[in-house]
């Protein structure tokens, strides 16, 4: 199994990425990537598009060079080695089969580039070593075998354009495995196939992996595909590894809400931990198996829909009304409204819509995880002066962002793109402010809100502060300078960093 690791020993590790970072034009795509893969493993990089999984794969293939960090193959640094010298082969997203070559020539392409050392005796009787091409017969033999593996024997003479998507896919795989690479890289290889074909190929690829014993590194955004095929899954988001583990671990014990949300269906709640083995969410206390949190620490709680048990209203911890029942084949998808919370349930038996039910969750069905702050979220109101009030303060803001293409006239009214005149006073908005967009000052008059630092945590690159205002609004912010706990500060947020969206009637799902 792969693990985030420090580069100490090298037992069975075929490839190792150490502190790998990749930036394009100053934008970080992959950040501090640490991972090793064992020989023969089927490992999958799973994440939404733009999470850096393909970039990581391309760095292993050699198409991109890491901005910093090292890639070790069998313990040797290959970070700067060009792709044609790496013993890895890639199956490309859109196959990239050469359109001017037929099936045989495509599959044989890699073999024809290969040079093997042969020793021979020259006329003077000296033994010499020279690099020779592979003999044609051996190439033909190997191509034939590779085509057999992908079940396309006899297709040698066919032109690429005459093949179906699935066949092209197989040829792309044959073209890669014929070179007997140490690692096979697969970049969303099944993305272009239809669902049925994809499912078939998933099983075939898995069988192929077993038969060949080559290490597979697979990239996909399809969680089901990852769960079906992999020995190990690396869940990625925003260029960083979120969790590494077996499919079972990733599914049953998601490390954070991102993983929980991305893998399978989940109910995610905000909760607190009053003590070990107890968690409060949806206004009730639940027994759980997690501990080690501070008293009353805010946490995220994940409950899988299949772990919610429907009981009679008296027996349930939560009570609610069934709002929707959808038949999904193997199970019903049921939505239950419990006060403000909407809870999704999967069950093989279905209650009736409108029925009152009780809900419980077994302790092992509750997954508690530390809250990760990404962004400060507030509810705000636009004032008469086109500023915004939120988080116990008042800030200057750009109200034109609420309506694309709008501008302000001299009197401060908003003119929309269509020319309508709007008075935004008392408009309710959602406000988002990033961790790094808030600065602190000890001059109480420069900032839009004032508060005391109640917590600071050193996060290797910066300190994370929580500033609490008089009326108990919390700002989470990052700052490189060291302040003291309980310092009274005012908070400055630049006008352009305040992201606002209009409040619409909110759905109940927390």
């Amino acid at each position, binding site marked *: 199994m792969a693990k985030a690791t420090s580069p100490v020993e090298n037992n069975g590790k075929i490839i190792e990425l150490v502190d790998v970072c990749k930036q394009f034009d100053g934008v970080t795509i992959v950040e501090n990537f640490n991972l090793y893969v064992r020989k023969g493993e089927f490992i999958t990089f799973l994440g939404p598009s733009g999470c850096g999984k393909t970039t990581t794969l391309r760095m292993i*293939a*050699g*198409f991109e060079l890491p901005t910093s960090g090292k890639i070790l193959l069998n313990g040797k640094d290959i970070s700067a080695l*060009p*792709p*044609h010298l790496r013993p*890895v*082969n*890639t199956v*490309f*997203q*859109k196959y*990239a*089969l*050469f*359109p*001017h070559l037929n099936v045989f020539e495509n599959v044989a*392409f*890699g073999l024809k*580039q*290969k040079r093997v050392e042969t020793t021979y005796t020259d006329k003077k009787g000296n033994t010499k070593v020279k690099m020779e091409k592979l003999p044609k017969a051996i190439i033909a033999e190997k191509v034939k075998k590779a085509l057999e593996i992908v079940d396309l024997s006899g297709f040698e003479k066919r032109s690429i*354009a005459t093949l179906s998507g699935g066949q092209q896919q197989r040829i792309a795989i044959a*073209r*890669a495995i014929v*070179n007997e690479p140490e690692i096979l890289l697969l970049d969303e290889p099944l993305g272009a196939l239809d669902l049925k074909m994809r499912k078939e190929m998933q099983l075939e690829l898995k069988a192929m992996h077993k038969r060949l014993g080559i290490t597979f590194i697979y990239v996909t955004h399809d969680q089901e595909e990852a769960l079906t095929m992999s020995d190990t899954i690396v869940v990625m988001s925003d260029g960083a590894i979120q969790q590494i583990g077996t499919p079972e671990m990733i599914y049953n014990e998601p490390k954070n809400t991102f993983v929980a949300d991305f893998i399978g269906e989940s109910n995610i709640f905000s909760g607190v931990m009053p003590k070990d083995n107890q968690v409060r969410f949806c206004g009730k206390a639940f027994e759980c198996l997690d501990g080690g949190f501070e008293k009353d620490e805010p946490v995220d709680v994940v409950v899988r829909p299949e772990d919610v048990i429907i009981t009679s209203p008296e027996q349930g911890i939560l009570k609610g009304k069934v709002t929707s029942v959808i038949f999904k084949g193997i199970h019903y998808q049921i939505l239950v409204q419990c006060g403000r919370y909407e809870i999704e349930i999967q069950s093989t038996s279905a209650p009736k819509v409108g029925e009152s039910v009780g809900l419980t969750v077994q302790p092992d069905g509750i997954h508690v995880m530390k809250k990760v702050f990404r962004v400060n979220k507030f509810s705000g109101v636009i004032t008469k002066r086109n500023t915004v009030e939120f988080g116990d303060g008042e800030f200057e803001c750009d109200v034109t962002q609420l309506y694309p293409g709008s501008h302000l006239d001299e009197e401060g009214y908003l003119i929309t793109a269509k020319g309508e005149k709007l008075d935004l006073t008392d408009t309710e908005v959602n406000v988002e402010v990033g961790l790094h967009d808030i600065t602190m000052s000890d001059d109480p008059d420069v900032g839009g809100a004032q508060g005391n630092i109640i917590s600071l945590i050193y996060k290797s690159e910066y300190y994370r502060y929580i500033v609490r205002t008089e009326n108990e609004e919390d700002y989470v912010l990052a700052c490189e300078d060291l302040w003291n706990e309980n310092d009274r500060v005012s908070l400055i947020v630049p006008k352009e960093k305040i992201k606002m969206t209009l409040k619409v009637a909110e759905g109940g799902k927390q």
Partner: protein
Amino acid sequence: MTTAKLKPHFSRKLLAIPYALFLAIFVVVPLFIVLYYAFTDDNNVFTWDYLILFFTDGGSLAQFFSSPIFQTISLSLFISLMSTIVCLLIAYPVAYIIANCKLKNKSTLLLMFIVPMWVNFVLRINALKEFFVWIGTYNKSDAWNIINTIIGMVYDFLPFMILPIYTTIIKIDKSYLEAAKDLGATAPKAFLKVTLPLSKSGIISGISMVFLPSMTNYVVSNYLTYRNVKIFGKLIDDYFSGDLWHDGSFVALVLLLFMFLVTWLTGGFEADEQSETRGTSLW
């Protein structure tokens, strides 16, 4: 339903009518007129005379190879061939470099090679002539006349070689090159095995855009050689301006044959396999 049938039905095929008409009036009909003149005499009677005259120069078949017609044709072929080769040798690297440069505004760079086309071509050729006079190679010797003609043809037709090659190279998916490198090919190998074959269609249309016109563009040869180099186009012109319509028509047919031959040799009659490079042959 009868009403549906009566409804005037607009089909996209109807859009082809103007071009079909144009094709008929200005291409097909004149071709037949040429064919008619080539095989009839002044009394409108069918004859093989002009065919025989062309191949025997008034004597035996053996005399063809020493006839002025043969000399004109072989010189013209030589000039066309050299012009095409020189054009290709210049155009391919240029197109390749522009297509692969990291600049955002590649088209501006490409424009630098096309802007000269906006200046009147006779003017340009005259300027080139003055340049040759200035450096002293103008009408210096027969060899120089041929070289100057080739330079003129290259100068005139280079953009027609660059454009189709550029369009095919820029359309080649970068993943093909990555695949080649991934499979162990070095950069030069990847170029030879992938980029070059995949830009073949551009090269071919470039060749036909340069080779065929440089057989007939006698403005270049006339201006640059003091009328001392005679090419195929000039031969036809001479016949027609000398009122020898039948001779001229037959030579025009021979030229047509050459064109078919070149088109066939370069695979121009084959249906384009790759839909992505469709349209490039229009250049």
